[in-house]
């Protein structure tokens, strides 16, 4: 299975990368995919994906991961990635991180 990962928003600025393509075996979970990306991009990546580096690792509230157009939550991190991307047998993962500001 081929997995296309796009980094969007400030995450792309931080990682100095917009896109990467990985090969994944059937049954690969999103958490495993994120682990592989961590080895490529280091803690700069993981800090923005998870609320804390220590377990239990949970997704940052404003980091959204879309797999083939569907937003992922913590409960889906350990499910196998679906293979229903644009190309048959592929998967498209969009990772978006938003830093913040607010008030009132």
């Amino acid at each position, binding site marked *: 299975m081929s997995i296309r990962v796009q980094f*969007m928003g400030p995450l792309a600025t931080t990682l100095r990368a917009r896109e990467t393509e990985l090969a994944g075996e059937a049954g690969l979970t999103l958490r495993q995919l994120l682990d592989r990306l961590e080895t490529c991009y280091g803690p700069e990546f993981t800090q923005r994906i998870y*609320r804390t580096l220590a377990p239990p690792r949970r997704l*940052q*509230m404003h980091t959204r991961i879309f797999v083939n157009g*569907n937003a992922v939550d913590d409960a889906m991190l350990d499910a196998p990635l679906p293979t229903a991307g644009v190309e048959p047998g592929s998967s498209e993962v969009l990772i*978006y991180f*938003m830093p913040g*500001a607010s008030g*009132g």
Partner: protein
Amino acid sequence: MGTPAGNGQAAQEDRWIPSACTICYGGCSILAHRVNGTLVKIEGNPASPVGNGRICAKGLSGIMILYDPNRVNYPLRRTNPRKGIGIDPGWKRITWEEALEEIQVRMEKLRAEDPRQLMIQVTTTLAPSSLLFFTFGWAFGTPNMWVAGGGIHCGNGAHAVGGIMHASWSLVPDFKHCTYALYFGASKGHGAGHAATPNMEQAADARARGMRMVVVDPICNFAASKANEWVPIRVGTDAAMALAMVNCLLNELGIWDADYLKTKTNGPYLVRPDGTHARDPESGKPLVWDAATGAARAYDDPAAKDPALLGTYEVAGEACRPAFELLKEHVKRYAPERAERITGVQAATIRRLAREFGEAARVGSTIVLDGVRLPYRPAAAIYFRGAQGHKNSSHICFAIDLLNQVVGAADVVGGALGFNPVCHGHPETGRPRYVPRAERDGLMTPGTWMLPHLPYPPAEPRHPDSMGFIELFPLSHVSPLMASADQEQWWQRFELPYRPKMLLNYGANSLMSVGNKDTVAETLGRFDFVVSFDLFLNEFSDFADIILPDASYLEVLDPRPNFPFIFNHPAGPGTWGWPIRQPVVPLTHERRSAREVLLGLAYRMGLGPEMNMALNVFYGLDGPQMLDPKKAYTFEEVADRELQHKFGPTHDLAWFKEHGVITWPKTMEEVYWRPFVDVRVPIYWEFMLGLGEKIRRIAASRGMTFDPAYYSPLPEWLPCPSHEVEDAAYDLYAFYYRDVLHTNGFTMENPWLDEASRMDPYSYRIALNTETARRRGIRDGDTVWVESATGRRVSGRVKLTEGIHPEGVGIAACAGHWSRHQPVARGKGVFFNELLEVDYEHTNPVNLNLDLCAKVRVVP
């Protein structure tokens, strides 16, 4: 108005259009009456729980904003290159295309160099709508965004503590069931703020029902004047009083809710002599001492049947004590007599109030609502801007909330309620759905939040690469360094790899809303280029290069004026309501909605994929409603998707435009959620120890230091800089309060509100205690100077009153406009913020809240 067809002709059009107010961030639901194209009346919308048909003076006066002849109607460009306070920019009318072309070229160049050179600034008045501006910033790739003045004045402390302890942005007493409400520097239900109008109705119901209300505040105005008791307090000392009250409850009266503390807080977690938790060596989970079996067990071990709250227990060779016991010991240092010296409130009063509060909480009692037996704790301690706007901000809010926590009056019937921490969603779609959940050490994190990083667990502090250093201080959300006197010094010391060059402003008048004007002016002068969307030219405009004529709230669309519900949806039992804001009159002149312009600009710059993804994240869109990164959308299309995503295809934008609001009932499990959700809150902030140390390691080598007491796990009263002024000539504390007639500095230009303010004894005056004034030979109506110990001063006319602490100088912020472009506002009231220093020294080193009091003298 009553007879709008005054010329005798029959009305061809006569419509009531449902929408939402935006004169403050309360966003109350309105009906706008339009006759033959003219807006003739604004009323509340009875179909919406966000006001129940009621609306305040500000909301009623929107017509005079819409039709103000001083509004900006065309894009303007400066011709005078010199920028400065009061220096005429020489505005020249340009076309939209000229304006957008210049902005695009500059932005693209900036983005190619380093997108962080763009700073985005919005006003708190428009806080919910302005969040869309942040999506542009995210798409652009800059972390430099802030609410000018908003967060550093009202929210960094109050909202973070609200999030950690109540999973919400703010607190109110359960107006329906509370019998004893203790307010510290808050006006919830008596004026401005989140859910302003609904709270007024609920607070009045509570008064009529007989809820006893005690208000601790330096000034007796909106809330205090309706309370059963006003307790005047020295400015900025609320934490000392609250801690003394907790001391009375725990050590003099023996009142606490052991069941609640054992199951819903970290009270039983064992603490080692070094202040950290004793942890299970395998799982790392904090240990409790199970009195039943006489053994230390993980806090969530089902075998720990009876976790001890008191005592000393040996674990791994160390004497460990439950966190509650440490709290109980800690507050002994705040004897009422000591608190009296700090606060000026008599020890006997503190003792009496503690007893009244403790007894009113009825620890152990239950009540049956809708057939369900629930904990009943009808006492609540509430804080907001007045109490929290000081250098010790986090501890103040924490200390006050401990009153709720020790008696178990948090998010249960009658107690202190967060604004809507739980929502199970609309019955047809289950959306929006969010529930607080247990995070590290079993402690609560909110189910939804206004910011990317949740208040708990705090994010890992990082060496900052943003202008405000919020990565270094993860419990902050807005930073004074965005406009401080010492910003360049800190940027150099931390080797910030860029400097802000361009500022994109949305309606904020930061020259007046942050602090003293000279400091802010200096920071604004550092930008090469400033673009501002505005309704009016104002004092800030003197620093702008291009002004873009914005649409008012009566001319724009917003699919979610009251979501997240933790922000400004009324709390407590009742009904959920999701209204929309929609244009009630068409745009005239060359005004455009800032958000449409920004969306267009993003597409124009090729930021479409990033912008659409930012919108997907911001609105939580996915599935069929997810915006395709490759396509371009109008804001109407985005709004349509947002509404269908939450409420299904039948409730699309067209449905909302007609009906205005969708409602469904709240359930008991949502409102009084605490017994139903398995989370704990920290009465002992162990995480502060490690957090403070991590920040110190990054900051100290750069010369940014702080007293570690700010990071102590239990709250302390720490003085403001104003308490440490030694020159006896400066003998008074100046503070500001929010006037019921005004929102920030925006509403003095509204002639109906201005007229009421001129009739009001206090709105435009400096409130001074009668006796204090007499001793200085100052008479009612005199014009005086208020001079700060740091050498700043403002003048205004005095209103003598018995309703202010003798050491207090009370000013309704933030008036005193001088721009000739706002002829109604000009010269009215007092510019309090001129007295405020904006620098790290006056900033809370935990949450970056600015200190908002000043030691002053009053001279003729």
